[in-house]
Every structure is written in C-alpha cells, then in structure tokens.
C-alpha cells in the first residue's frame, strides 16, 4: 500500500521545509513510515492525506482513500467550503481536541485527533545547562510574536536580567523594549533548531486571538526536544534561572516525549484509521 502526503507547502509552491505544519504533520511521519511518501505531481497512491489542502478537483477525482488533515482554521477566513470538503473525504484528522470539537457538529465524516508529535531524528543531543540563565527564546511566525511578546512579558524578563532571542520570519522590534536586549534571528529551516538551542529556556505565552483555541503544543515539544524547558509562569521563570532545575525538567520531559509525543504513535493512529476505512468500504 502506498500512502502519500500532499502538503500545504507543496500545494502553495513554498520552498521545502519552510512550513512548520507540513514538516511536523507530514514530512516527519513520512520519514518514519515505510509505506508513506511525500506526494509528487502525477504519482498514484492508495491513500492520500491532504495536509491542510482543500483541492476540490483532486478530492473529487482521486479514487483511493482520502484523509483530510486539519491543524488550523485557515478556512474560516479563506475561500474554502470546509463543510463540503469534509463531506468528500473518508476521514478527518485534527491536531487538537479543540479543532475536532468545533468541526464535529458540521460533518458525518469521522474525526480523529492526531496531535503534533516529533520525529526525534530531527533533533540532536539536547542542550545541557551549567550556568545561570541569561537568555530566553521565543520562536514562531512574526505576526504571533507581535501579539504575545507584550510589555508584561518584557518587563518580567527585564526584572530577571534575561535577554530575549526571537527566531522568526521577520524582526520583532517593539516600540518599547523595556530595556530588554532583543536579538532577532531569521528563521531558516536549516538553522532554526541550532538558533533556538542557543538560549537557556523558552517562553511560549498564549495569544488572546480567536484562533489560539486551536493551537497545538508543538512549540513546547520542540523546545523540550532541544533541551530547553518552557516557562509558562513567573514562578517557572524563576525556577529555570538555575541550571540544575533546567536539566531536571528536561530529563522528565524527554521521557514524556518518548512515551507520548513521537511520530511513531501518530503513524499507528493513521494505520488504524486506514484499516477502519478499508473495512467500512468492504462492508459497503
């Protein structure tokens, strides 16, 4: 059986590795799944997983099993009839419970949550900590940086003598930096993880935007895999100033990743879904 991942990145002609969701939800799985490949134009397959791709002509004409994978509600603002698209596929997967719950009333097509998980081959040795923290990192799309890195966060960093590194697709230059030393690094697929790893721990403050309720925890998982704890509260920030607590936290988190957050689990979920669809088709 051949399984193809048709990604948002490919469909929109973006450079390889430039789109986080396509990397995390397709490439990382395909690399670990013998029967799976990244879709190529003209390639025939038995199963097509459309990663945030709403290509109705393909969905209409493709004769094999079709799974629509959704990880953010871009269709809320785009020219996509998501209810109609969902009705034409065999199964829907989502990255979060929130997204699944939102969509469930709109469709009879089964929905399964397959969270963002990690392919550990993409992460080297985790960072080891030996000194007091001097710098924290935030990474992600620039438009999110503007929303979440507010004056309260900056003030909090300043109080602790912490600098901020922003790894993003554009420069984060707040009107008032509160005296925090901000280093901007351009996000590149090749170097981003090395750049992130240069800091002592990560911050990942929640956004107040409406779409945030559907956000996955992938940035937290990536930080952990790189050896960086994620501080979500002031207390955690204080705690992670000390290297021994950072090392301790990472030891725990790496075990958690190994148990719950590796792509092998997602592949198993997909295999179960495909088996289920095949069985249903046989019954019909």
């Amino acid at each position, binding site marked *: 059986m051949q399984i193809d991942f048709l990604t948002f990145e490919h469909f929109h002609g973006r*450079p390889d590795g430039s789109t986080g969701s396509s990397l995390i939800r397709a490439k990382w799985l395909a690399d670990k799944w013998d029967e799976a490949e990244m879709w190529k134009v003209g390639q025939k397959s038995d199963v097509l997983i459309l990663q945030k791709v709403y290509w109705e002509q393909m969905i209409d004409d493709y004769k094999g099993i079709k799974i629509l994978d959704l990880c953010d509600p871009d269709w809320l603002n785009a020219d996509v009839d998501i209810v109609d698209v969902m009705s034409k596929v065999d199964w829907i997967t989502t990255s979060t419970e929130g997204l699944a719950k939102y969509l469930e009333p709109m469709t009879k097509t089964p929905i399964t949550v397959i969270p963002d998980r990690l392919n550990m081959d993409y992460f080297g040795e985790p960072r080891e900590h030996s000194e007091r923290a001097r710098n924290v990192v935030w990474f992600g799309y620039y438009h999110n940086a503007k929303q979440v890195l507010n004056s309260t966060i900056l003030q909090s960093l300043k109080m602790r003598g912490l600098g901020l590194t922003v790894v993003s697709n554009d420069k984060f230059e707040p009107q008032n930096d509160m005296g925090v030393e901000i280093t901007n690094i351009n996000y590149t697929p090749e170097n981003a993880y090395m750049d992130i790893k240069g800091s002592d721990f990560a911050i990942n403050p929640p956004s107040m935007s409406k779409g945030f309720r559907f956000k996955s925890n992938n940035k937290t998982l990536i930080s952990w895999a790189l050896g960086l704890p994620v501080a979500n509260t002031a207390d955690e920030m204080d705690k992670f100033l000390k290297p021994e607590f950072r090392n301790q936290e990472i030891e725990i988190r790496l075990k958690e990743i190994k148990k719950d957050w590796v792509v092998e689990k997602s592949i198993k979920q997909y295999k179960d879904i495909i088996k289920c669809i095949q069985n249903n088709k046989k019954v019909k």
Partner: protein
Amino acid sequence: MHWHDMFNALKDDADFFLIDNPAKEWRREEYLAARPIPDNVTFVPYYEKGKYDFAILNVDQQCINEKLGKSKVVKELNEVIQDIPKVFINHATPVYPEFVCTDGITKPDGEKIVRKMIMDIIGDNVMVVNSYKSVQEWGSGYPIWHGISADEWLPMKKEPRVCTAVSAGGCDEYYNRALMNRVAQKLPEINGHILWWAKKNSSKLYRMGDTYTKRENYQKFLGQSLVYFDGTFRTPMNRGRTEAMLSGCCVVQVEGAHDLERFAEDGKNMIIVPNDVDKIIETIDDLLENRYEEAVEIGKNARATAIKYFNRKQYRESWLKLINEKILCK
C-alpha cells in the same frame, strides 16, 4: 504554444489526459478559463502506468527556479513517468539573467548555465522547440511552428490604435521589457496615442469582460486594432503576434525575432524596426497618423501569411511526423 491548439489540431488522432497539478499557472482552472476544453481532453488526478502511449511535458527557462511551482511539476512528473517515451516542449530560450546572473556572472555565461540546467532536465528525451532559431539557442531540438485556427481570429474594421499582448510582468530581459516600457511611455508624447497592453492597461477596452482571458472580447479587440507591436526578439515565435497577424493587424516587429527570414517581408506583411525606441514610436505614430490604408493592406497580407505558415494542418502534420518517427519508435 497553446495547449488548446494541440488538443484541437490532433482531435481526430489522440486523446489527451492532463494530470492535475497545483502550479498556479498550470492549474486546471487556468486551462478552463483560457479556452473551451475539447472532448478529447480529460483531467486525471495521477499518472497510471500502461494507459498512455507517450507523455508531453511543458518546460521553459523558469523551470530551473525551484521557488516556482512549475519547476516542481516538471521535476516530479519527470520522476514519476518512467515507462513511456517523454517529449518536452521547450517553449523558451535560455534567457534568464534575473535568476542566474548573480555574483558577477555575465549574461552569455548565464545563458550557458540555463542551457545546461534545462538540458539536464530534458536528458535524452525528445525536445520540441517553437522555432528554427530555438534549435540554435538550445543546441538541439525539433522545431514545430504553432498552428492556430484562422476562424478564431478575424479581421474587423480597424480602429486607429496600437496594442500588444507581450507578457506584462516577469522575465524582463527575455521580453525586452525595458524597450516595451519606454515605447509605452514615450509614444503618447508625439500625438497622444497609447500602447494598449493586454493585462496591463487595456482590460477596460474589452468592455464586455474584465480580463484578457475573456477570449471573445480580446478577439474583438485585436480584430479592431490597426497596429500590433512586438518588441521581443529572444522569445520564440510569439503566439500573440500570430493571432494579431490573423486578425489583420499591421505588426510592428523588432528585428532579430526568431525565424522572421522564413515568413516576414518588411513593408509587405509586417513592419520590421530596429531595437530603438525613437524609431519604433516614430513608425507606430506614423502608421496611426498617416498610413491607415497602407497598414490595413499590410494587415491583410499578414493574415494571408499566417494562414499559409501557421495553420493547424501543418502543425498537425509536423506533430504526427514527429510522433511516428521519433517518439513512438523509441
């Protein structure tokens, strides 16, 4: 070339299966918007072994630019299709300095780089090009001139205006766009005539429709235009120019364009001008101001020439010959 012509020219000879792809310029909706799709064409979601006799892939110099969707389409289809002969239609020339001439690479060296990269993609597959000059440009290839239905492009009573359908953006050097822009800028300074440029400033003239892809409106617009200007000379056999010839326009063409010596006669079926802004605007303005009847006559001759050389019969026969002698025998 336009696929529409191929589908129609070979409608009694072949069925075509178009593999859906996500490249913006080659998506199904682009085909559907441009022309009615004839019955011998079917869109398919993927390639299936054993179903087809040979494959046709479209390529141009931009296919070396991995940032463009069409480069992925060519690369991936070339990988996927391995069991049948492939023919590449290379409808460009190796002019792409915007992409390759960085770090001090000269334009001639840039063309060598493009030539090599494209020929590496094509490999030992059959390559069709649009002109005899293209064979020289690429170092190999089978030239097939396009074949357009004369019934689709009809001359009408001419309005004293000049137009062009040369691409309005991208690949500036290839389209000699600096000259085109200067002509557009300077022409009105003489007697107020405007260069109506498809997809740039002329859509309002189509009235009933809104874009160049509204074919009927464009056909009418072209049929009523007295003069058509083509400032390119590195593009092989512009289809827009042939449509203008069939529409009875008096074509003003910059010298050096591909294969002119094989069909064009200066002052009889075309006006050939040097690559010089002042001489071009002077010529166009003179035609619009003082030489209406002469321009109409040249347009009539242009239509006859286009019917003689760029008809569907010759196009079909050229393709059938190539298919039988070079592709299916492989």
